[in-house]
């Protein structure tokens, strides 16, 4: 081919992954591939573990080979439709790079440390011996469980039975902790997961950051789509022209980090123009007068200077919200660990919802309900000598769950509190921003680090023992029983036998339990017994669930407040707390204050990051199906930045932060969809583990550039968005 200068190659070898074998065409008739579904098809219920939404579906095999996974029609989380990642679940099961056998760290004669494949017995005995020794010398409470994901429950059970109270997941300090604490401080309750957003009935939805559409939490996407179909007014506040921004009537391209100012201005307008739900506030809330005084200062004109959102737009959008109230949802968001003032921002969001009367109202935030499912009868757990608060000292008074980063810090040094870690399903070096130096120091101090994972993720490199778990398609886990629109249960059961020498988490937990003398907490042979017992208590059975996958139950309580209903909120005052005495008592702002965020130094940009639909963080980038959609992340830069820096669309650059940390290479995408003061990338790329053969070294990792982490003083959240980067052109 002449003159195109493009390097094109052809795929010639089909991967064995798909089991499509090479059918050689024969003269006179090839063996055409049969139409899908013509073979022997079987269908097994599961709920998805590709992210934390837990959509129920059916995994299909054809002639014993993996085929497809589709949603379960009666499931509330999925409405019969899985998302991109859920549809690609088979790719994670089929991943040839999966962990295959237990690994034990060994130091060779040459002093080089390597992993040796060992038997389960050897691995489990090693762990049990170390744990017992640590318990004898320091106490069982000095072991922490850092975990994420549904399967973690088995290890939480093990830890609690053993006497450890230090359990932490990134879902708190790196994710939704600020939001949950902010809402608890205001309504006494959090929005939970799945979020109790009633978007399918909303007439106005305000998204602050939440990039639903890129954030593919299925129920969120589907109900937002339903709202769009019904022509609800969408207002999106985002420095980037996110997917929902593109669907919105109003896009407010806010200056990064100034959302609290905007929220206060909106409250200012609602109160100033008497647009708030007076009856609702009178009936349910306390502290309105203080709030009114507080927001008086935050006029749209003043806030304009901070946020860049013009006063007219602020007023217009506030009026839109009020016009649709109470079917107006100020979306609480989910990943809210942004700038270190996040609990306060979330509180402001909660308060705005309160002013509009949307908590407990149709189109706002509904009352969720789950099945009252009895626990399998077991002896009570021993009281741990200390819990996760031991890691906090006198910091983070409102941290009501373990703070991962605090546990890492409390594991550094010879006299550190923690002596052993069990890490389940969380890739800490990429998950906790800028943690790598502390992580290394902690690992050097700890006496035992066990990692339970399915993939050779970076965290496995820090382990003494690596335990290969089978994927969600190869195991039982607890029944899914989340608070939802109505109570429902879903079953996850093995579709396949565990591949290689991997095992389900419940089996590992039990085996460790036996070795630690905790038999009485593990009386089952197979976890199916627990599930069957529980199901029978609520009038179902494992057999039934194996057929239907999801069982829905009627509500026993109303989904919304009745008009003029008396409601006692689980706050100290029993009311919605617009003014928080709890916060005042601990020396924090009782009503959110705005402080101006740090600005990037000359030549630097805000490092913005988020989700891309094709992947869940870094855990799916090696999934061959999803890799084929998005093999790398790209760096979004505004055309002004591109021309100023001489960047070409498609070229590879590196990023550097003010501390001189330089990222992996990343491909430039020149797009108008980003502010000229920011750059954007999806989180989850830039894997360094070479054993992830598809994804290693592709794209850049936002986490390692985050050395300027703003800790939320209320609950320990790691604000990740105060980081700045500059762009370095690759010279190759």
């Amino acid at each position, binding site marked *: 081919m002449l003159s*195109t200068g493009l390097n094109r190659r052809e*795929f*010639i070898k089909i991967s064995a992954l798909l089991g499509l074998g090479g059918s050689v065409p*024969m003269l006179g008739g090839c063996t055409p591939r049969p139409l899908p579904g013509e073979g022997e098809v079987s269908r097994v219920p599961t709920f998805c573990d590709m992210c934390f939404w837990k959509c129920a579906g059916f995994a299909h095999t054809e002639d014993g080979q993996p085929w497809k996974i589709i949603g379960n029609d009666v499931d509330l989380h999925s409405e019969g439709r899985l998302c991109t990642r859920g549809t690609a679940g088979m790719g994670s099961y089929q991943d040839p790079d999966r962990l295959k056998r237990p690994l034990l760290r060994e130091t060779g004669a040459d002093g080089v440390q390597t992993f040796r494949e060992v038997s389960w017995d050897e691995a489990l005995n090693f762990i049990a011996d170390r744990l017992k020794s640590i318990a004898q010398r320091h106490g069982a409470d000095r072991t922490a469980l850092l975990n994420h994901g549904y399967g973690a429950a088995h290890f939480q059970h093990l830890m609690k039975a053993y006497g450890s109270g230090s359990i932490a997941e990134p879902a708190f300090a790196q994710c939704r902790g600020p939001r949950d604490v902010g809402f608890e401080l205001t309504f006494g309750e959090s929005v939970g997961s799945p979020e109790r957003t009633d978007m399918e009935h909303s007439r106005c939805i305000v998204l602050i950051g939440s990039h639903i559409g890129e954030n593919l939490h299925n129920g969120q996407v589907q109900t937002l789509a339903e709202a769009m179909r019904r022509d609800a007014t969408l207002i999106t506040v985002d420095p980037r022209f996110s997917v929902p921004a593109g669907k919105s009537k109003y896009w407010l391209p806010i200056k990064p980090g100034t959302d609290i100012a905007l929220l206060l201005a909106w409250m200012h307008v609602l109160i100033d123009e008497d647009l708030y739900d007076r009856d609702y506030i009178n009936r349910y809330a306390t502290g309105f007068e203080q709030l009114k005084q507080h927001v008086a200062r935050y006029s749209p004109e003043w806030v304009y200077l901070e946020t860049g959102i013009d006063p007219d737009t602020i007023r217009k959008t506030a009026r839109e919200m009020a016009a649709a109230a109470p079917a107006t949802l100020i979306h609480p968001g989910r990943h809210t660990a942004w700038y270190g003032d996040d609990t306060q921002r979330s509180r402001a969001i909660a308060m705005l919802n309160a002013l509009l009367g949307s908590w407990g109202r149709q189109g706002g935030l509904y009352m969720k309900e789950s099945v009252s499912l009895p626990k399998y009868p077991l002896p009570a757990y021993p009281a741990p000598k200390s819990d996760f608060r031991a890691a906090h000292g006198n910091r983070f008074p409102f941290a009501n769950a373990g703070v991962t980063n605090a546990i890492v810090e409390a594991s550094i040094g010879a006299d550190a509190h923690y002596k052993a870690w069990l890490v389940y399903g969380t890739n800490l070096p990429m998950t906790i921003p800028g943690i790598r130096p502390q992580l290394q120091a902690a690992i050097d101090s700890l006496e035992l680090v066990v990692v339970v994972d399915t993939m050779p993720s970076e965290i496995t490199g820090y382990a003494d023992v690596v335990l290969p778990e089978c994927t969600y398609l190869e195991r039982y886990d607890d029944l899914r029983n989340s608070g939802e629109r109505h109570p429902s249960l879903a079953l996850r059961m093995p579709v396949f036998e565990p591949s290689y020498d991997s095992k389900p988490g419940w089996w590992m937990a039990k085996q460790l339990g036996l070795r630690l003398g905790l038999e009485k907490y593990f009386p089952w042979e197979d976890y199916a017994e627990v599930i069957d017992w529980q199901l029978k208590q609520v009038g179902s059975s494992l057999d039934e669930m194996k057929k239907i996958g999801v069982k829905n139950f009627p509500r026993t309580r109303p989904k919304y407040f009745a008009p003029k209903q008396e409601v006692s909120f689980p706050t100290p005052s029993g009311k919605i707390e617009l003014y928080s005495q709890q916060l005042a008592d601990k020396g924090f702002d009782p009503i959110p204050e705005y402080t101006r965020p740090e600005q990037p130094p000359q030549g630097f940009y805000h490092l913005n990051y988020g989700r891309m639909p094709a992947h869940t963080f870094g855990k799916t980038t090696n999934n061959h199906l999803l890799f084929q959609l998005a093999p790398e992340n790209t760096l979004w830069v505004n055309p002004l930045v591109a021309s100023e820096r001489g960047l070409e*669309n498609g070229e590879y650059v590196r990023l550097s932060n003010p501390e001189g940390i330089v990222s992996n290479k990343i491909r430039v*995408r020149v797009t108008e969809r980003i502010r000229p003061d920011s750059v954007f990338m999806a989180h989850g790329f830039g894997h360094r583990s070479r054993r992830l053969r598809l994804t290693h070294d592709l794209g850049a990792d936002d986490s390692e550039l985050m050395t300027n982490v703003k800790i939320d003083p209320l609950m320990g959240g790691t604000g990740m968005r105060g980081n700045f980067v500059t762009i370095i052109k690759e010279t190759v």
Partner: protein
Amino acid sequence: MLEEILITARSNPHIDPVLEVWNWQISVYLFFGGLTAGIMFFSALMQVLNKDREAPFAANGLALLGPIVLSLGMTTLFLDLSHKLFVWRFYTTFQPTSPMSYGAWILVLFYPVSVLQILSTLRKGYPMVVSYTERVPLLPQLLNLMETYRRPIAWMALPIAVGLGVYTGILLSAFSARPFWNTGLLGPLFLVSGLSTGAALTALIARQHSERQLFTRIDIGLIVAEMLVVALMLINLSTGARPQLEAAEKLLGGSYTMVFWGAFVAVGLLIPLLLETFELRGLMRSAAVLAPVLVLAGGYALRVIAVDLGQETTWINYESEFNPQLLERLR
């Protein structure tokens, strides 16, 4: 600004990032196909016109080259197929809307007629084989018979030659999906070029000076015609729809400018035209070899440009957000 991109990495081989289903195999085939048409056309023409004296080689020797050249072309055509064992499927059907189907059948018509044509001129064209042919039983009788029907056979060959020429010409132009090809002028251009290469080949090989002069003169006429068609085509493209303009831009300043103006227009048309004119005036002896060689090279360059550029012009062509080459890691 309009940013229109593929946000799913896709690497469908031969389609991404730009269409490249056809390569040198097709250019070679089209070139040889056109050349074969020229060969058959001029040999048949001279036979019909009884120009044994003025053009002894064209009338009696040229036809033999036809099946040889075409077979080479068909070999590369076969090499191009991606489902080779099913090649016979061309001949279990006739698809009236598909130029390629016509082509397939014209190709099979070509061979028998070409063989008859060769047999009817074998003794005259290749006297050194006579001693051998006379020894083969029945062959002399057969050759006698063929020689008797030399003109009717030539009359049969003429439409096939034209069909072959037109078919390789219009094959590409029937693709409405490829704006550069989809002009009514690509057909005539290929036809003229095919005939021109046929004439040039004859001028190159013929031994008799007057015959070489004759075909040089014919070729000059064809080159001039070809240049007119090229000019028309450029005008046509520059006044066409967006993708056609894009094609024109590639020829007028873009990535194809050098090959088009250099390899095709200058080397393949202008220079041979000048050389041939000099040669006719007896000014330059060496041109007798050089000019036809350049014409043949130019004819090939035209096929390469047409095949490649045509595939690059599309109604829709998205860039990819992601680097599709990364998908090679799947192997």
